[in-house]
């Protein structure tokens, strides 16, 4: 009996101890239950999801073009111009000086940036740079070093496809060993080189702007369309995933009637005003009349003695460029034209002046331009300032909502919108903040890793550097080059094709004439001529 009693007692104790030991389980259960309830509730009441449902944008991500892996046959490229842009384009194709590449790879590995590694994995478009052309020996030699080292095979491509330097671009165009050319020279050569290339049957990727002067527009258009070569202008923005979604949102009419489009440039540093002939120490950069073929560099431009300032800071002179219009507004126009298909304006008025960087050159550093689209019932404005870095987003104003689009995209409902009156009344959307926001990257840091200089920051903010498609970060320039290469191999029209270039060329010439000749300009569609008013 006593034995039994004792056993009962300890069993009771054991059970109680066991229950005590498990006291945390109901707490845990309660937490689990409440967490489930909370996440369920939040999912059902997620205002972002509700808004997307109301706007009918659940399938928006499908509007982003997939990056297909269509390598195809080898394309042998000739590249003209190895100043600043040439090496960047080569890099976008996976060609990089060996030492610079190794240094950059190590640097990226230490700060967790995967851009180069990702390019090594996904960015081989099966091209070889077999032709180099530059009027400056030093730049041409740099080009040779770059072309000889690809990041995919460590140089095998160049070993199989030797690189050759041409003194004159005409010699390169005459060589059957070149399939296509990339033109990254100062703007006053763009049209003539593109025309000659098209006539020689070479496909053309030409940096913006497509032309320098009015009289080049029609010959360029005719030469390219008659030759059947694939022409792509160097605007990378259509490849940006955020941008493709913006196009879809506009196409679905979510902004309502669009009454104004505002494009801007704001930067505040000498390099950004194209003062580029001095090193960081204030000394002139290399190059002289012996190492630079000055006559070829000038081309059809007025004959002037050799000038290192003109050679590097050419974008400051109307003799070789159209300043802000050709250099930066061209990107803005392409962006807007890709989004809205505005085409050629009915009238253009420009005004501004050179008020700050007055040492040399003749381009303005403050500039305002209005492009009237009477048929469309809207005005495109371009406001540029090279002495203030205060950013102003590219904005499209509609009666129902306004959109900002650059690296990120926002859509904000209008206070007076009829379309969104119901949503506004319910309080689901608010005119003081965006109802839709699409950001570039997955995590915040991915966007900031790459940002290094003021110039890079400017381009990033306009959506001109990189984009994410299916989780892979792409340099948008690589995608733009790929778009051109895909069309060469498989047919089709590239994003910034000759029709887009034609419209852009007219718009740029109208703006340039309006500023330089201080008049309003209009487009005479019948006679295909710009009219001074």
């Amino acid at each position: 009996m006593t034995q039994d009693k004792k056993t009962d007692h300890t069993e009771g104790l054991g059970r109680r101890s066991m229950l005590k030991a498990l006291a945390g389980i109901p707490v845990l259960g309660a937490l689990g239950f409440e967490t489930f309830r909370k996440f369920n509730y939040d999912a059902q009441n997620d205002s972002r999801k509700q808004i997307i449902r109301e706007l009918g944008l659940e399938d928006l991500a499908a509007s982003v073009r997939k990056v297909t892996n269509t390598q195809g046959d080898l394309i042998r490229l000739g590249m003209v111009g190895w100043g600043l842009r040439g090496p960047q384009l080569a890099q976008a194709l996976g060609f990089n000086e060996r030492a610079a590449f190794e240094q950059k790879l190590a640097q990226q590995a230490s700060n967790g940036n995967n851009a180069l590694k990702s390019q090594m994995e996904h960015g081989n478009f099966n091209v070889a740079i077999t032709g180099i052309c530059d009027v400056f020996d030093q730049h041409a030699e740099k080009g040779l070093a770059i072309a000889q080292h690809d990041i995919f095979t460590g140089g095998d491509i160049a070993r199989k496809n030797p690189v050759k330097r041409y003194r004159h671009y005409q010699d390169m165009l005459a060589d059957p060993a070149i399939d296509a050319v990339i033109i990254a020279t100062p703007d006053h050569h763009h049209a003539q080189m593109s025309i000659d290339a098209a006539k020689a049957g070479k496909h053309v990727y030409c940096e913006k702007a497509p032309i320098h002067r009015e009289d080049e527009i029609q010959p360029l258009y005719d030469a390219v369309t008659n030759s059947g070569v694939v022409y792509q202008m160097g605007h990378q923005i259509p490849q940006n995933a955020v941008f493709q979604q913006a196009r879809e949102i506009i196409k679905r009419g979510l902004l309502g009637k669009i009454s104004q489009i505002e494009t801007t440039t704001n930067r505040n540093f000498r390099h950004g005003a194209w003062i580029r002939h001095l090193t960081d120490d204030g000394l002139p950069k290399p190059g002289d009349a012996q190492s630079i073929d000055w006559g070829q560099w000038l081309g059809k431009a007025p004959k002037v003695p050799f000038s290192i300032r003109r050679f590097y800071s050419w974008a400051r002179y109307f003799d070789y460029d159209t300043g802000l219009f050709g250099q930066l507004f061209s990107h803005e126009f392409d962006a807007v034209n890709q989004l809205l298909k505005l085409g050629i304006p009915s009238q253009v008025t420009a005004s501004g002046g050179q008020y700050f960087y007055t040492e040399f050159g003749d381009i303005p550093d403050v500039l305002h331009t209005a492009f009237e689209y009477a048929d469309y019932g809207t005005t495109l404005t371009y406001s540029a300032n090279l002495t203030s870095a205060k950013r102003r987003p590219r904005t499209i104003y509609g009666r129902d909502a306004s959109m900002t689009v650059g690296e990120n995209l926002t859509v904000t409902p209008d206070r007076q919108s009829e379309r969104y009156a119901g949503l506004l009344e319910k309080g689901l959307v608010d005119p003081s903040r965006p109802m839709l926001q699409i950001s570039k990257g997955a995590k915040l840091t991915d966007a900031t890793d790459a940002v290094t200089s003021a110039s890079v920051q400017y381009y990033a903010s306009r959506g001109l550097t990189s984009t994410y498609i299916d989780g892979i970060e792409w340099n948008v320039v690589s995608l733009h080059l790929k778009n051109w290469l895909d069309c060469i191999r498989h047919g089709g029209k590239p994003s910034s094709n000759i029709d887009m270039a034609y419209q852009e060329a007219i718009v740029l010439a109208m703006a340039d004439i309006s500023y330089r000749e201080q008049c309003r300009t209009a487009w005479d569609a019948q006679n295909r001529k710009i009219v001074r008013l």
Partner: protein
Amino acid sequence: MNTQTNISKWQYGWLVTLRFLIGWHLLYEGIFKFLKPEWSSYGFLDGSQWVLAGVADWITSSSAVLNVVDQLNTWGLIAIGLGLILGLFTRAAAIAGAILLGLYYLFYPPLVGLTPSAPMEGNYLIVNKNLIEAAMLALIAVSPAARMYGLDSLFARKVTS
């Protein structure tokens, strides 16, 4: 077991309650971060001031490091929260929790002259809720009573018998 006799039933009860409450708080923080993959400590670390600002800069300067820190933080919170609620490895969980909360404190201490980059829900000078919670976990770590309503007590019994 001897120390237990020095403690009243109420003290005992509140210590265990405290353990559950802090465990709940930390576990939910961990679960929240786990269930929201877009969550990142970037925003928190980016505004860090005082002695750990340099460490925060180093972490945020690289997405790889940041990712590791985010994972460690999420799973650390989950493990500590589970330990406190279940009373499993309670002392280790309490010490780890105190250290983690101490780190949060040091990334953002409310000292004179430091201005928080994000608005806070209260007003603090030197002492804030992170510091108090860290101190409470230290109390739990040194108090054997707080371990009693938990799985640790089963192991303790086995050893003594």
